[in-house]
């Protein structure tokens, strides 16, 4: 293979840098290209004819569009699959190889599929591989090896991806003449503009146009440089979502693999141009069959000679321009087939490349290049996403926008045809209109937002669309010649397949798509949609407009998962004592957003030391709400099921909360700090829910109540000092609080100074069942107080304990956890705390359901259970069953080995007839064995009378 043999002499608009040679490999072989080349242009210049094998039949495929949308131009780079060779710029040292070939591109053994093609009609797999059924998994494995696409390198580092929000006035999608003009004039009219161009170069079709086109481009680029426009090349507007929320994939930001820009654009200008449409005929997928735009682009920008002897099918001016360009480049044009004069071609022939073209007039012309200029597809994807339903114009063979929202404007080729000057003019008018409308949108936003700069009361009038419409140049509607050929190149679907599927009954465009997979490949029908519809129309005797199209959906061009998923925010919360825990060997546990100590090495020892002496746990994540106002008791009465009218100042009370369906929502204690001042605590995971629940009642149902709720969860660092020695430890740390048990009793609170820190709150409650003090100290001093407590406790053998120790102790004590021992169906009576449900209150959340439930409660109950064998600790969620008929009677909800009682202890939910003390239960262990257990009298396995915590 010669090197760079197929470069043309220097072209006026070429963008390659001939002074900078780049080495790369193709299927392991060293080759070279120039800086500025795409992989595709470099391969073409190296005379590479076959780039890939087709999906189903493994037919050889070459470059047809030589751009991003080339249906068979995807290649594998080292760790990246499906790289668009017509788009990705060449880099020194790239390792490029063909995908989906075995054992090699040149000898692909699966090419036999091609021979069997007539049997592998669309949907063939639905009709076979069924027998024998046991073999389907084997068939499936074989079929899966046919999956197209490259290989993912799962061990490659995932790379750095980024995101950014933006609030531009105008986003322009497309940097061709119309988009450039729109961006320039919008900026001149004062708008903040983002111009987004999918390829690496601004200019669109002008880049490979005439000298005149290039002059226009130069002029536009000069104007652009003077205008204040944010230009993003190698970037794609991937989607238009509600209220002009625009997704932009930016592949050109320094240091970043790909970046997702989320722009709330006041106006979107769609200037995406057109995509050249292939023509269906036998042999239309042979290497050497190319779109006219591909041929011109390759020659003008990359100085690549696409062939030596060409036949050109030219149904429009672009085809004529291609003939001119080919001739100028010294490529022999053997024949021009002009459908405008009734000419047509029949088929292309060749084995690995076009060798000859058979024309409708019977001639057979030898050629190695067949250039197609049959017409255009308007990639209306973005305007469809904006809610428009474009309509088909038979005379130009493409779709045009119908009625996009007023904040979306279309210009350029998608809006109509014109000379370059007319297109630029339309673009300018569009940019100006966009800027004027954007200012109205800005006015509305500012007027609706209190904090914004104030604006005049009178809204500026919505600028009317007074642009002069572009023309529509008609040309013959060419979709399929007299022969059948490939319609969807990425999916290997032929027109024959489509006709057969339609005859079989898959005769609406959506069924046809799903049955044949036409338009479902990587280019999403950008080349195949119109031909698919045309062929279905042919089969049904309907027009293209009658058949309609399949739905375009985002993204406009594929976007990497990295860009979408990178820089995702996962907040982490830690308490004020976090650094101490880390320094003292805590094993962390992730509890939602919180990172907390699970234990400090030996949870059982932590329990024993706490029960026999004293322990300290960080409970900062406990939800805390500061409640103030004259009507706080009303709110408490409403949220909790029990009564709150008579809680004295300095008192603390426990309550459970239910949702309106009577299901337990949360529980916790609330203390009264002052006349109209309370502090509510919630479970850690329930903090946000309860806060919103309270606000909800206050704002929607009882706006007349005087209550202010302020979340203060981490305004306080919270810790629980537990154990028989806790009072002694604390006594050395307080000076203005009387700890005398006669004075400061169980379920009371005090405020004062702890370890020199003012404004602390302490209350005597305890989840652990020990004498304990819950300290809430201003968080900035949390670590200081914690250290002081640990120091003061040293002489009593104080231990820090973590969540696990607390779980064990609360279970020994039989305290249930909402959401663990109760579930999404647990009505409040399931907890056995009927006494806390006060039906004499006129109203509270969930009251009606609870009143009915209490009349005749038949649901499961939470009970304490002890396995007969004290060393058996059932797995949580083990089922309690009837040993005979295996019926489920309940389940173990919590289970631990109790270091205090030296036996296993559990909480369970059981059907009420088994809930009485002494009932024998059968537990089906996770390993399948059965164990006997006994229901206990009290929830508390330990100290049921509560002497310790009252001590």
């Amino acid at each position, binding site marked *: 293979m010669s090197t760079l043999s197929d470069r043309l002499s220097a072209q006026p608009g070429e963008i390659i840098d001939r002074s900078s040679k780049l080495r790369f490999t193709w299927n392991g072989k060293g080759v070279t290209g120039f800086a500025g080349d795409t992989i595709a242009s470099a391969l073409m210049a190296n005379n590479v004819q076959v780039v890939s094998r087709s999906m189903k039949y493994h037919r050889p495929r070459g470059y047809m569009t030589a751009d991003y949308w080339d249906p068979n131009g995807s290649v594998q780079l080292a760790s990246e699959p499906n790289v668009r060779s017509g788009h990705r710029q060449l880099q020194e040292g790239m390792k490029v190889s063909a995908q989906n070939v075995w054992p090699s591109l040149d000898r692909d053994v699966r090419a036999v599929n091609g021979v069997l093609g*007539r049997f592998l009609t669309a949907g063939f797999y639905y009709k076979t591989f069924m027998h024998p059924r046991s073999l389907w998994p084997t068939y499936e494995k074989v079929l899966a090896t046919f999956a197209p696409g490259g290989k993912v390198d799962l061990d490659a580092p995932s790379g750095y991806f980024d995101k950014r929000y933006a609030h531009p006035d105008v986003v322009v999608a497309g940097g061709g003449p119309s988009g450039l003009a729109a961006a320039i004039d919008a900026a001149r009219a004062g708008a903040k503009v983002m111009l987004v161009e999918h390829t690496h170069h601004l200019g669109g079709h002008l880049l490979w146009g005439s000298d005149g086109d290039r002059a226009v481009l130069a002029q536009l680029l000069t104007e652009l440089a003077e205008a204040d426009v944010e230009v993003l090349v190698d970037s794609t507007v991937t989607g238009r979502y509600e209220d002009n929320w625009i997704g932009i994939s930016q592949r050109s930001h320094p240091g970043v693999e790909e970046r997702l820009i989320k722009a709330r654009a006041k106006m979107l200008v769609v200037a995406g141009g057109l995509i050249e449409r292939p023509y269906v005929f036998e042999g239309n997928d042979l290497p050497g069959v190319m779109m006219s735009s591909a041929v011109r682009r390759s020659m003008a920008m990359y100085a690549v000679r696409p062939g030596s002897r060409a036949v050109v099918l030219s149904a429009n001016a672009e085809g004529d321009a291609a003939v001119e360009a080919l001739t100028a480049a010294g490529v022999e044009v053997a024949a021009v087939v002009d459908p405008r004069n009734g000419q047509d071609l029949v088929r292309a022939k060749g084995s690995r490349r076009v060798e000859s073209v058979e024309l409708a007039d019977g001639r057979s012309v030898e050629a190695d290049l067949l250039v197609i200029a049959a017409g255009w597809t308007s990639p209306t994807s973005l305007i469809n996403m904006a809610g428009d339903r474009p309509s088909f114009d038979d005379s130009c063979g493409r779709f045009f926008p119908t009625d996009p929202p007023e904040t979306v404007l279309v210009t350029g080729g998608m809006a109509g045809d014109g000379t370059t000057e007319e297109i630029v003019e339309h673009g300018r008018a569009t940019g100006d209109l966009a800027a004027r409308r954007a200012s109205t949108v800005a006015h509305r936003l500012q007027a609706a937002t209190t904090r914004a700069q104030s604006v005049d009361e009178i809204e500026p009038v919505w600028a009317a669309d007074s642009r002069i419409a572009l023309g529509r140049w008609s040309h013959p509607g060419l979709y399929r010649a007299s022969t059948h050929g490939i319609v969807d190149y990425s999916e290997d679907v032929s027109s024959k397949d489509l006709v057969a599927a339609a005859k079989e009954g898959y005769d609406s465009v959506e069924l046809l798509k799903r049955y044949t997979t036409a338009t479902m490949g990587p280019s999403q029908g950008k080349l195949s949609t119109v031909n698919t519809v045309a062929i279905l129309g042919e089969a049904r005797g309907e027009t293209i407009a009658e058949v309609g199209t399949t739905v375009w959906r985002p993204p406009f061009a594929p976007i990497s*998962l990295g860009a979408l998923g990178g820089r995702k925010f996962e907040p982490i919360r830690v308490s004020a004592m976090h650094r101490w825990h880390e320094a003292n060997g805590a094993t962390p546990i992730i509890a939602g957003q919180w990172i907390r100590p699970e234990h400090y090495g030996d949870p059982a020892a932590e329990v024993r030391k706490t029960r026999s002496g004293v322990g300290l746990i960080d409970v900062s994540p406990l939800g805390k709400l500061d409640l103030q106002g004259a009507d706080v008791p009303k709110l408490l009465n409403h949220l909790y099921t029990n009564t709150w009218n008579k809680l004295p100042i300095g008192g603390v009370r426990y309550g459970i909360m239910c949702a309106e369906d009577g299901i337990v929502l949360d529980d916790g204690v609330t203390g009264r700090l002052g006349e109209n001042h309370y502090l509510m605590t919630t479970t850690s995971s329930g903090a946000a829910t309860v806060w919103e629940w309270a606000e909800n009642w206050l704002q929607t149902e009882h706006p007349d109540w005087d209550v202010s709720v302020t979340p203060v969860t981490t305004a306080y660092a919270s810790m629980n000092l537990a154990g028989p020695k806790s009072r002694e430890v604390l006594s050395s740390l307080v000076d203005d609080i009387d700890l005398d048990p006669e004075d400061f009793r169980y379920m009371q609170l005090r405020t004062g100074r702890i370890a020199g820190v003012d404004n602390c709150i302490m209350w005597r409650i305890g989840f652990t069942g020990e004498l304990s003090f819950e300290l809430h100290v201003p968080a900035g001093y949390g670590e200081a107080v914690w250290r002081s407590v640990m120091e003061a406790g040293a002489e009593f053998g104080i231990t820090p304990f973590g969540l696990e120790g607390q779980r064990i102790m609360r279970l020994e004590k039989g305290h249930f956890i909402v959401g663990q021992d109760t579930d999404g169906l647990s009505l409040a009576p399931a907890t056995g705390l009927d006494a806390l449900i006060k039906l004499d209150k006129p109203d509270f959340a969930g009251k009606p359901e609870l009143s009915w439930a209490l009349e005749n409660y038949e649901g499961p109950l939470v009970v304490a259970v002890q396995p007969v064998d004290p060393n058996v600790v059932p797995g949580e969620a083990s089922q309690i069953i009837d040993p005979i008929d295996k019926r489920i009677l309940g389940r173990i909800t919590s289970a631990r080995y109790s270091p205090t009682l030296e036996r296993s202890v559990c909480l369970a939910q059981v059907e009420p007839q088994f809930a009485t003390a002494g009932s024998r239960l059968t537990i089906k262990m996770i390993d*399948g064995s059965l164990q006997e257990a006994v229901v206990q009298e009290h929830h508390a396995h330990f100290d049921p009378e509560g002497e310790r915590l009252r001590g």
Partner: protein
Amino acid sequence: MPSVTNMLRDKNQHGQRRYSAFGLLRKGLSNQPWPRVWREVPLKDSYDVVIIGGGVHGLATAYYLAVNHGITNVAVVDKAYLGSGGSGRNTAIVRSNYLTPEGVAFYDRSLTLYNSMADDLNINVMFSERGHLTLAHNDSSLRTMHWRAEVNKLQDIDSSVIDPAEIKKIVPSLDVTSEARYPILGALYHPPGGIIRHDAVVWGYARAADAYGVEMHQKTEVLDILVEGGEGRDGKGAGGQVTGVMTNRGKISAPIVVNCTAGWASLISDMAGVDLPISTRPLQAAVTEPVKVFLPAVVVSGSLHTYVSQTDRGELVFGAAVDPYNNYSIRGSLEFTEGLAGHVMELMPGISRMKLLRQWAGLCDMTPDYSPIMGATPVEGFLCDVGWGTYGFKAGPVSGEAMAECIATEKMPAIIAAFGLERFAKGDLVGEKGAAAVGH
């Protein structure tokens, strides 16, 4: 019970109908077309049963009415094409490891029917029993996984909790290190779960029902339900009797009308004067470009609101939780793909350079207890098979079978007894929330 295979062979209404490898060869050699999968026939003005909704539920109901009960004067009407609703846009996960005994028994029956479907319907539905993993990232979800596993085992469902090392063996691409932001602590493993070619199921039921004479009418939109004698407006509502439906193609009389419209269920029921506890929420999904197959099982993470599988074509198919607000629009959102990609990369960091190809959405009929609403309504003759939320595809076969029985016998079959509409008025909800939320 006659099998469709036999029907297709015996009736031979439209030439050689049976699908087989030999059939393919013959057609290939003779260049003959295959017969239509279902006929295009004129719409009659009356049927014994009108089924609204040409998704898997409507079509399966029609099929089992015909094959199990000999009721064939049936029309399935759909406002668009068959499978245009959730049935054509779902991520095709099939499993039976639910949480409640009622749920487990029900979905297990469906799995059985899916298993023999290729034979029963004579179409390869490509049921790929590749195993289904529900990951647990915290101890409370691990506990729920155990709970499900234990209930499942008691009903002889292959389901167990496995540890990270075993998970890694089954799905090597998962990051099971403890450094992950959401470490994988374990998973509920359900080997019989898998994915299926959802379109083939829809087409298979339609083709088989057609063979028995059931009519499929596409582009036939129900605009009103005709009810007489009810206590609501225009004689609709409780106590009324259905007499037919009004469509864009005219009136159809029928003593029995079945609502199988999933996301649109409330609108249809409202036409009969029946209220439902349903909210319609879009559920989104997306696919990547194809790559060589590397993901052997279905992976679900409830905490991350994500699930992923890889089709035999090589695309990754993703789904997530329903959208955060009610909507009848099936447009996708950018935030959905962001969340999705972020979460999947959390599980498999190596896929960051794969590219998202397409996103879409479908409408889900969410109920308060993540369980369906099946059977009779306060309007005589108006039945519903709705409330399928995000998980109803897998229930298609068993629902069709049970609904057909319900229609034919006028009795609620035991297998769906827990799913009646009256449970809401009784406050007797089904406890599937934990297992169905993002389980699919």
